[in-house]
Every structure is written in structure tokens, then in C-alpha cells.
């Protein structure tokens, strides 16, 4: 289970502090598919950064399974991150590793044996449709292919949660649907998926839970939600 309890996050600027999140509280049950929507600057990315421990809240608690994320030290982060798979808008693949090595890396850091790597990596790459491009480097792949490598990397170690921050932001409509279909499939296989996006069509067609943020506050939280900005 994932829970945010009265979470605040402010950034200190040169002249004044800006509040990215103000008293955010919600829970996400295992196997849920939740979309986070909101305008740019509403606090979606901040919320995800707090969940994966990339940043710490100014106030409040962030819980993921048995971990109280806001209390983890730098050296405890790797343990938390073994339970999460993260997908970013800008892919964040390791540039000097092939698609295969990028996916294998997530397994290696999770402590998998060579045998497991040899077995799972081709399977997962096959699942995202990249079995023929696994020895290409990221710069040799298209945007859609790169994002599929990122998805393969995020799911290969079978995390409980997959967090996707604007995963389709840099993709054309065709690739957008391919990626969303993959995320739905991953969710059906039993993984919690949190999808931050401002793609109206995607949200409306999913018919899943939608949490809407505005200026750092949760303004709507609906099952079978639609994309509605205030």
C-alpha cells in the first residue's frame, strides 16, 4: 500500500519559497491503476519524486509498503527502489549500455543471478516488442522504442509498484497508445501502476481512478475518473 499523509513540499528560491505540495493526503491499494493529472506545476512530478525518494518532504509522511520513505537515509534508498520501477518522460536510459544491458542492470542491482538475467531480460524485451533491437544502444532507437526499453527495465525485477512520470510526453499518438497498453497489461499482471500525465484522451479512455492536483492540493479523487481541470 502507498500512503501520503498531510505532505508538504516547498522549494527555496533565490527570492522566495514556493510550495509545490500543500497538505496532500491519499492512499493507493495494491494492484490499483491510478492516474495523477494536473496542469504543469500542479505538483505531479514533485509527488513522484517524494514517492521514489528522490526528494524529501518538508512535512508529512510518505509510506510505501513497510518503508517510511521520508525517513530513509541515502544508503537505504537502494532497498526501497528495488520495490519500485520508474519510467520518465525523458527515458533516462544509460547511454553507453545496450537495450539488453539497460534492462539487465535493474536485475543486477537487485542481486539476480546471471541465469535469471539470461532468462528474464529477453522475455521482458520480447513482451515490449524489442526482441530484435536488444543489442542496439539508446541513440540507435526511436523515442517509442526507448520508452519501451525503459518500461522493460522498470518491470524486469517484478516490482510491486511502477511509477510513470509523463511517459508519453515525448511520443507520437501511435506510440502513446502502445505504451499505455503496456502499462495496462503490467497492471493486469498484478503490479500497482501510478501514471502522471496531462494527456486528456489517455485518461478518459482508461476509466480508472484519477487524482487531480491543482497548485499542490488534491482537488478531486474519483474512481473511473475523467480528465477535468478546474
Amino acid at each position, binding site marked *: 500500500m502507498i500512503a501520503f499523509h498531510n505532505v508538504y513540499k516547498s522549494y527555496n528560491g533565490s527570492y522566495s519559497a514556493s510550495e509545490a505540495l500543500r497538505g496532500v493526503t491519499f492512499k493507493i491499494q495494491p494492484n490499483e491503476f491510478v492516474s495523477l493529472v494536473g496542469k504543469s506545476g500542479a505538483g505531479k512530478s514533485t509527488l513522484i519524486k517524494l514517492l521514489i525518494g528522490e526528494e524529501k518532504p518538508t512535512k508529512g509522511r510518505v509510506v510505501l509498503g513497510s518503508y517510511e520513505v521520508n525517513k530513509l537515509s541515502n544508503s537505504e534508498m*537502494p532497498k526501497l*527502489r528495488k520495490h*519500485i520501477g520508474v519510467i520518465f518522460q525523458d527515458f533516462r536510459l544509460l547511454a553507453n549500455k545496450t537495450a539488453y544491458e539497460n534492462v539487465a542492470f535493474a536485475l*543486477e*542491482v537487485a542481486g539476480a543471478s546471471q541465469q535469471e538475467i539470461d532468462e528474464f531480460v529477453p522475455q521482458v524485451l520480447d513482451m515490449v516488442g524489442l526482441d530484435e533491437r536488444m543489442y542496439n544502444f539508446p541513440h540507435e532507437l526511436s523515442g517509442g522504442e526507448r520508452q519501451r526499453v525503459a518500461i522493460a527495465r522498470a518491470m524486469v525485477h517484478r516490482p510491486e509498484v511502477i511509477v510513470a512520470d509523463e511517459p508519453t510526453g515525448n511520443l507520437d499518438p501511435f506510440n502513446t497508445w502502445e505504451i499505455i497498453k503496456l502499462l495496462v497489461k503490467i497492471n493486469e499482471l498484478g503490479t500497482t501502476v501510478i501514471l502522471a500525465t496531462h494527456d486528456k484522451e489517455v485518461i478518459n479512455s482508461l476509466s480508472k481512478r484519477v487524482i487531480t492536483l491543482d497548485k499542490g492540493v488534491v482537488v478531486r479523487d474519483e474512481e473511473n475518473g475523467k480528465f477535468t481541470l478546474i
Partner: protein
Amino acid sequence: MITNIIRIIKYGLKNFLRNGWLSVATVVVMLLALSFFLFLIVFRFITISTLDSVRDKIDISVYFIESAPEDEIIRIQKSLEGLEQVKSVEYISKDEALERFKNRHTNDAAAQALEELDDNPFLPSINVKAYDPSDYSNIASYLENDSFKSIIEKVTFAQNQIVIERLTAIIENVNRGGLFLTLILAVVAVLVAFNTIWLAMYSNKEEIGIMRLVGATNSYIRGPYIVEGIVYGIIAAILSILIAGPFILFIDPWIAKITPEIDLKIYFFSNILILTLYQLIFGIALGAISSFIAIRKYMRV
């Protein structure tokens, strides 16, 4: 654990190969730093050997009056040998001095002039060498002793005093200055190499952040970069020795002209293993420590 170590080494080597020109450029800078380090070792050998040979040429001669009895001279020789500053004392009798003179001047006018004389014009003498040139003034004043004075004709120290003192000062300054210069230049070389590795690692800043987000531990991220730094060091160390070999052969005749006592070629090739070891230690330490420090900065995601 062992699997992890193997993976770290594998990725370190792969990074090195895949970085291409960046690796080449880093190795070249490391090579310059290490060659410089090697040059400093060889330069130090040359200056120390030159100074030793100059030092070895300094001595003082004590000339005795013609009638000085040999056993008295030997007594003085023995008492000089008893001084801790004295390295060696050589007694040259009248006959021996004549013999040496003849050997040095076989066919010149000086030899002919000597023929004209019926008598052996040379005085018996002893030649004193000290461990440290600054001790010659002490030895000279020791010879002023009343019990020796009566049979001593002259001590050359008085005549050569200025030259000896000046040489002593030069030797000391060259030694001190050489060491200081070596240290300064070594620090500069280290900083340049360190900075280059730092820049090479800077290009990996983003990758380090990604690895952290994927869940890699600090040691798993840092490992391959340290291996990469070590590879830079090893390659640069081996190249520095391979380049220095022909270079030493090339400059050896010139060095031999300036200071015939030094055989740079023999020094280099008989010490090649220990020099390679120095270079490897220096290269590996420089590569590994620079990578370690440079990476640490980007590990805080």
C-alpha cells in the same frame, strides 16, 4: 559478492572501451603526468650522480717537508683515519709521486724538464677525502695541531678553500632546490591528471543519477568508474615506460658527454622493473583516487 565484483570489472572495462576518444584523451594526459614523474626520477638520479662525482673530486692534500720521517707521516695518516668525518686517506711517497707524474706526462716538455734534474723534486704527501665537503675546514684545522705542524710543508685546503666552500654551497643548494622543484612539479602533474579524470567522470553525472534511481548501491555505481580509472593508470604507466626506453637511448650519448661518470642507459635498463612498478603504483593510485573523489560528488541523488 564475487558475481558483483566480476560485473563491476566487466562494466569498468566496457566503459573504458566504449568511451572511445574520451578514454584516449584521458590516457594521454595521464601518460604526460606519469612520463613527467619518470623524468623527475631519472633527473634526480642524474643530479645526484653528478653531485657525487663532483664531491668525490674534492680533497685536500697535505705535503710534508722533505726530511719528514715516513713513520711520522704514517702516524698522521693513522690519526686522520681515526676521524669520523674522514672517508679515506692515501699516502703518496716521494717515489710514488714521481712515478705518477711520469705516467701522466710521458712525452711532453714537463717530462723532459724533469730529466734535467738529478733529484726527485716531489714531496711526500697524503690525500684526504671526507664524507661531507663541509668537513674539510675541520680537517684542515685539525692538521694545524702543533704535533703535526713541524713536519707539514703545506696543506692545499688554504689555497682551495674558496673553491671548496663554493662547491659545497652549490651542491647543497642544487640538492635542496632539486627536491623542492621535484615536489612542486609532481603536485602540478597530479592536479592536471586529477582534473582530467574529474572531467571524464563529469560526463557521466547523469548516468550516475539514473543508476541511483534504478536502485543501484553506491559501491555498485562507483566500482566500474574506479576500475576505469585504474585501467587509465595501468595503460599510461606501461606506455610511459615503453616511450621512455627509446628516449633514454637517444639522449644517453649527450648525457655521457656532459658527465662521463653516468651511464644513464645502464641505470634505466637495470632498474626497469622497479621503475615500472613505481609507475604502476603511481598511475593506479592516481586513477583510482581521482575517480573515487570525482564520483563521490554525484552520488547524492
